[in-house]
């Protein structure tokens, strides 16, 4: 495969992902700021953000550590947030599963909400694309996201300590997560899941070690899956 033939899908991916920079940038900055507020050094913040590269999971684990939850709970909750990545991995596999191992490893590291959503939508549309074109498009979508994610985390970490308490930064995480959740509620099953999860975690706040979050989320996942089954049976699930 010559470089010119895979160049076009790469730049197509780059262009499609460019607007998402506006979503990624503030989220990365929030992580940088919150991490510094939690007492992490710049180096610790940057190792965290580059090695994990998943904003919602990073904020979840950090939040729980700050609330003095045990490390195991912070870890399990962060991983639970990232379980959707396993689903992304599963749905990318038919398209990119034939790539060499090192490329699949790189694709895995770069699998985030934006690169996944854009790529799967494009692969469904361009059924004529071969593996090199698909791979090039995927890497194209990551190219504006990764540098912005890393640099904006750094900027957030650098300005973090200068932000006054009036900025109400304690509420940055709920607002950022709510903004992500809203567009996710595409079906009644998603709505049921979110409602059961919220209600459950409020009812289970008495459970020690912040275990209530995981208990509520597990019940909610089962509720969502069950709701999907019921809706499908009635022909209401698209």
């Amino acid at each position, binding site marked *: 495969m010559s470089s010119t033939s895979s160049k076009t899908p790469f730049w197509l991916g780059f262009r499609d992902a460019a607007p998402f920079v506006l979503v990624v940038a503030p989220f990365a900055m929030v992580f940088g700021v919150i991490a510094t507020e939690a007492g992490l050094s710049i180096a*610790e913040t940057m190792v965290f953000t580059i090695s*994990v590269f998943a904003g919602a999971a990073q904020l979840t684990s950090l939040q729980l550590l700050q*609330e003095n939850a045990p490390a195991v709970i912070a870890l399990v909750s962060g991983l639970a947030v990232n379980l959707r*990545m396993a689903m992304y991995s599963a749905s990318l596999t038919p398209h990119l599963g034939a790539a060499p191992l090192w490329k699949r490893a790189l694709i895995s590291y770069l699998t985030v909400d934006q690169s996944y959503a854009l790529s799967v939508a494009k692969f469904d549309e361009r059924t004529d694309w071969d593996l090199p074109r698909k791979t090039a498009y995927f890497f194209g979508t990551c190219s504006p996201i990764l540098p912005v994610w890393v640099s904006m985390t750094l900027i957030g970490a650098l300005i973090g300590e200068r932000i006054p308490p009036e900025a109400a930064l304690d509420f940055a995480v709920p607002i950022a997560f709510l903004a992500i*959740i*809203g567009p996710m509620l595409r079906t009644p*099953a*998603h709505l049921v899941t979110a409602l059961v*999860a919220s209600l459950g975690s409020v009812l289970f706040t008495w459970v020690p070690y912040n275990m209530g979050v995981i208990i509520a989320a597990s019940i909610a996942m089962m509720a*969502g899956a069950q709701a999907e089954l019921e809706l499908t049976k009635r022909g209401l699930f698209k």
Partner: protein
Amino acid sequence: MIERPELWVVIALLAFGSFLLRFAFLGFVGNRELPAWLLRHLRYTAVAVLPALIAPMILWPSGTDGAFDLPRFAAAMVTLAAGLYWRNVLVAITLGATTLYLGLYLAG
């Protein structure tokens, strides 16, 4: 204050675990089919974990030492409603933050 060895352990294992989750199917499964029940549960993980994490933070914010706070609650509801209506993360964050600061200013 977050303990130091704890923090590094969480970062290392979260990085490794997140990579494994992303690599799980692309790397190990290849082109084999996955059981439908597994996919059905995986679909709802994010939409279960994120609300479970923030629901108590919205009712009992840490910034007010756990006391219910109307500006924060209003900001949360506006963010959610805007996200539901416009399906746009950026619009939701902007309207939510505006509501929060306006509410905090009005509440003095």
